[in-house]
């Protein structure tokens, strides 16, 4: 029982974690992409369509990632090359993604899918309780953990990561030093798109292996909030995502027990609880301010 609950928590947390990590890198470069929800739903429809059309869930994942990147490139072109307003463009991207995915996915409604195979690691997967949790998951779960480590390493231990953070702090100064601000921002935005696409593919291939319209159900927005409340730090995003996953699964069990609490209230609980907890852990305002990318949401146009 405990083991299966823990397993579902990991499954619920993974898409959130992926989308939030991608957005974290984007925001560290000073770009705010409010289109996470839109990129995620495109990843979901792409993942599902790719799997149905080829019968191979791995190709599905690649299609999902590709659609996420494609949408992020559209965002990047508008916001970086044309220097449009990041807030408005991001919101439009979400609306666009939700609409387009509904259109693309119409013929896939009701189709059932091939589940992502579980990747067992011989020996380790048979450990009690944690065995299947840590070593008996789908490939996207492993990838999400690798990305947490990779993003942390990149941001805080490499010269390129340092430059990315510098751009997020002050693009004018970075430009004066000869750092290619727009190139870094494009790459960051594309990474964000890839992660959101992967998160979406996880939803339609692992979490609930089917396609329904609007199946992201606001997870893109929660991912955005996670990034802020986690003070733009990858391991806090991990903690936040798993906490959210735990409360969502917990409230499902609570609903099943019939405690007499309105189910709508219970469904809202994960959102509320996650934000509360993250607000509490980010009480150190000095630390939060240091981590907040100072140029977030502001366009940068290099001078002639």
């Amino acid at each position, binding site marked *: 029982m405990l083991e299966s609950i823990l397993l579902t928590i990991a499954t619920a947390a993974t898409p959130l974690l992926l989308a939030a990590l991608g957005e974290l890198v984007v925001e560290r470069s000073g770009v705010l992409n409010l289109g996470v929800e839109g990129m995620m739903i495109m990843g979901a429809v792409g993942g599902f369509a790719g799997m149905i059309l080829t019968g191979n869930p791995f190709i599905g994942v690649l299609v999902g990632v590709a659609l996420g990147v494609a949408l992020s490139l559209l965002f990047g072109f508008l916001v970086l090359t044309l220097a449009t307003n990041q807030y408005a463009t991001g919101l439009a991207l979400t609306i666009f993604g939700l609409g387009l995915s509904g259109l693309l996915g119409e013929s896939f409604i009701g189709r059932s899918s091939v589940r992502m195979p579980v990747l067992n690691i011989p020996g380790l997967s048979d450990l009690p309780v944690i065995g299947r949790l840590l070593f008996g998951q789908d490939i996207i779960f492993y990838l999400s953990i690798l990305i947490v480590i990779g993003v942390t390493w990149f941001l805080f231990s490499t010269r390129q990561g340092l430059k990315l953070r510098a751009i997020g*702090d*002050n693009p004018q100064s970075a430009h004066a030093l000869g750092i290619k601000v727009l190139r870094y921002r494009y790459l960051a935005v594309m990474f964000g798109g890839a992660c959101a696409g992967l998160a979406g593919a996880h939803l339609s291939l692992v979490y609930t292996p089917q396609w329904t319209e609007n199946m992201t159900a606001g997870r893109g927005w929660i991912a955005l909030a996670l990034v802020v409340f986690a003070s733009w730090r990858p391991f806090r995003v991990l903690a936040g995502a798993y906490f959210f996953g735990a409360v969502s699964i917990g409230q499902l069990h609570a609903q099943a027990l019939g405690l007499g609490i309105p189910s709508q209230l219970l469904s809202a609980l994960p959102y509320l609880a996650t934000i509360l907890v993250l607000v509490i852990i980010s009480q150190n305002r000095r630390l939060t301010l240091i981590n907040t990318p100072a140029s977030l949401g502001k366009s940068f146009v290099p001078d002639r």
Partner: protein
Amino acid sequence: MSLNGPEPLLTLRGLTKSFGSFKANDGVDLDIYPGEIHALLGENGAGKSTFVKMLYGALQPDAGAIVWRGQETVIPSPAHARQLGIGMVFQHFSLFEALTVAENVAVALSGDEPLRKVAADLEAVSRQYGLPLKANARVHDLSVGERQRIEIVRCLLGHPDLIIMDEPTSVLTPQEVEDLFAVLRQLAAEGKAILYISHKLEEVRALCERATILRHGKVVGTCVPREETAASIARMMVGADIHQIRPAKPASTATAPLLTLRDLSMPARDVFGTALKHISLDLHPGEILGIAGIAGNGQSELFDVISGERLASRPDEVTLFGAPVGHVDISARRAKGAVFISEERLGHATVPGLALSENVILTRHRVNPGLKSGLFLNRGRARSLLDTISEKLDVRKSTPDPAAQALSGGNLQKFIIGREVLENPRVIVVNQPTWGVDAGSAALIRQALVDLAQGGAAILVISQDLDELFEFTDRIAAIAEGRLSDFTPVAETDRRAIGLKMSGIFEGVPA
């Protein structure tokens, strides 16, 4: 001329750069020799920044040649400039507040050394030149002087042969300036060439061996600064004699003060702000008081609480004309006959996108009933006020009523001062009256304030420009970390004494 070698390190011939139809640089020639400190002088907008950007690879010249060590070169990027051996210390610091000192240095280096090695290197260089720095400190915790040290050390770590310094002293105390000059002289003695960009003539006379003077993008002269007077160099820079301020006669402090602060304290707005601590002052009619200080020591907080943008915790902490006003807002304080001129010209003193006449209405509608007719605005009256302002303070504009953002810094400031002083206010509080304003306009603005004091107005000037404060204020104090020193009559103090107060040393120091 004391030149160390016959071969110039860098020769520039006919450097030209246009933005649209505007020629920012027009055939600029310059030679720099190893071991030389060479000044590049010019007013705001004379083309100094454009010139420097071309040298540092941030802009490409339209025409002309850059000859580096005898070879004609193209400098396509700042990284390339650093490789050649051209280093730059920026005017507006190009530092990243959220990063540590070591990270700020590492981000500009072309190599890929681990951060630990960068930190060790930078501490070694900082010891060698007497520029103390801690590698792991966060930049936003550091003072302006310390930030400049980072810039210099970062530049030195690239082993440059030519160091470009863009107005390095505009934010330093007089003591810090002396320390900086010692470092620059040491670097020159080691054979490095320094291109020193400034508009502070006394500094250039003290430090530089040669000077090239730019006006409207053209070289108008070269000179040996030590053999010139500040006035003769200024004449070359401006192209005309600069207006000399007629000082007002000293005011009497026997009359009742018009503005007082009494033990004013206020917590910091946020972690980057400064708390105000027990500030008291009396401002009498006919008097001009100056508050010196380095940026970020509480000047903007003090201005905000005097103007009413932030309310004081007790009403009697601020009084105007004897009445407590700590609890009322800026409009109520204006209505009493005070005006407040913010340092931020666009976005605070004016709305950038609105026409000048509309900006007149914004601060004057409560005090000038002629600007309203019933429920509506009297735009005709606003436009005629604008004409009066423009005429009185020589505001030059391209159309009769342009948007505020279309004016140059100097013209905009003349408009703002003109607008506020139009109806002979009795109390004037002004923050950085001539920051970034060309010398001609600055003199006009200062004269306008002196004339108002002569007419009985009480004026409080907050400024980071010591020269300005010594030129036209009666008494000077310094603000440091939110505390205000005593006011000393200008005749009884000097830059050095005020400089000490600016660094926070004033308790127990005789006035």
